[in-house]
């Protein structure tokens, strides 16, 4: 039986691990390669790197991080942030990532999903979607709307419809990030996660809101997700990945326990 995946997410700026995009000011919290290796050794099932670099020059530093990671960790990892063209995708895949995650780039230009899938295979294309809860309306029948720019810009697109579109265009996986839950540590947005997991037949990663092993257990059971993304609960030492995995496994979820 397929194991549910636990996936730490690392935000990288200027080649360093930082606090997330949402936080004011960027605080250096370590070396991304070292951190990735530690999580790999501790049993992370996959790792996500998110480039929050602003300038073009810094992109080179980021790609260098990707290459170093690829030669030190031997589990899959994906890379997101600043992916707007097939060439952007190619650069991170050549640097050694298995998958590339496209978010606002796909909202603005959905064709990039089909182009990426044609060039690299669906398995390499993850679509990250940032979602906010809104009043149900004719345009947003589910009450969940696609947003970009960290939630500052509403796109007038229903999240469930967008998820189906991404699947039809050839996405291999969806990462559903609730902007409402993100950073709260109150748990994932289970209703949203479940609606999307039910609407598509590709794997769905739950993101935003992880504060405890129980939240993660809920995401991969009630939420219907095949993987749970985590960040601050492991970055600041509140839990280690083996702690989390043991507790979630004890609750009855099927996880990879030998690594």
């Amino acid at each position, binding site marked *: *039986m*397929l*194991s*549910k*995946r636990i996936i730490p997410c690392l935000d990288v700026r200027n080649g360093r691990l930082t606090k997330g995009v949402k936080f004011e000011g960027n605080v250096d919290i370590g070396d991304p390669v070292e951190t990735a290796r530690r999580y*790999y050794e501790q049993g992370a*099932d996959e790792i996500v790197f998110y480039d929050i670099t602003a300038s073009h020059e810094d992109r080179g530093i980021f790609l260098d991080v990707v290459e170093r990671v*690829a*030669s*030190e960790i*031997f*589990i*899959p990892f994906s890379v997101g942030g600043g992916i707007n063209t097939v060439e952007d995708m190619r650069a991170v*895949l*050549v640097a*050694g990532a*298995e998958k590339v995650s496209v978010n606002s780039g796909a909202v603005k230009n959905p064709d990039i999903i089909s182009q990426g899938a044609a060039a*690299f*295979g*669906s*398995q*390499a294309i993850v679509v990250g979607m940032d979602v906010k809860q809104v009043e149900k309306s004719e345009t947003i029948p589910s009450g969940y709307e696609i947003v970009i720019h960290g939630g500052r810009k509403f796109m007038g697109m229903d999240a469930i419809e967008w998820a189906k579109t991404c699947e039809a265009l050839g996405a*291999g*996986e969806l990462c559903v990030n609730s902007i409402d839950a993100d950073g709260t540590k109150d748990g994932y947005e289970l209703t949203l996660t479940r609606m999307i997991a039910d609407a598509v*037949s*590709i*794997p769905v990663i739950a993101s935003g809101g992880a504060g405890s092993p129980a939240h993660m257990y809920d995401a991969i059971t009630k939420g219907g997700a*095949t*993987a749970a993304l985590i960040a601050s609960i492991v970055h600041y030492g509140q839990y280690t990945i083996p702690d989390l995995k043991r507790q979630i496994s004890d609750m009855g979820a*099927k996880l*990879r*326990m*030998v*690594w």
Partner: protein
Amino acid sequence: MLAILDYKAGNQTSVRRALDHLGIPCAITADPAVIAGAHGVIFPGVGAAGQAMNELVTTGLDKVLKDQVQAGKPLLGICVGCQIMLDYSQENDTKALGIVPGECRLFNPAWTEEEDGRPIRVPHMGWNRIVQKRPCELLKGIEPEAEFYFVHSYYPAPPESYVIATCTYGEEFCAIHGGPGLWAVQFHPEKSGRPGLALLRNFYAYCKEASRA
């Protein structure tokens, strides 16, 4: 030295990185002389069967590979490499290499997950256990609880006598097929952490041993 067959497969660099990490000498190559001189050949693969076969046939590497197998050179196929070692793949209705009998089939979406009875999601993406059906040098020293990283929509279906290990996703399918010196794994050992690296190390040890014999 291990030759990693260069036919533009997406994971060939990942395989090289894993072998580099293990200190196993290797080269990504399409040169028949280099391949002939290697202790063993790794036949990687990511992507679609049709495209992979086109590339092999266009470059003549299909023949190189078959000749090496014929000559008894140890071979390890990975993912799409594992699939197109069979006679045929349903993906792109592809006539494949026919090194091992059997065909490669699309996961049946009517299969359901054991835990909640929902239809399986395709691709089968993530970590899963394998169950060993017959002895295999590749798995030496790897604990039975170990999991491997899979990402695929099609699975190999060789005759039962070739099945070395199976995996269950909705239903049981073949995860490793072949026989001594001619192996194919559906998962990605280069991305399966410690157990995957152990499998690659076992393959190299076998190749070196075989070349001495």
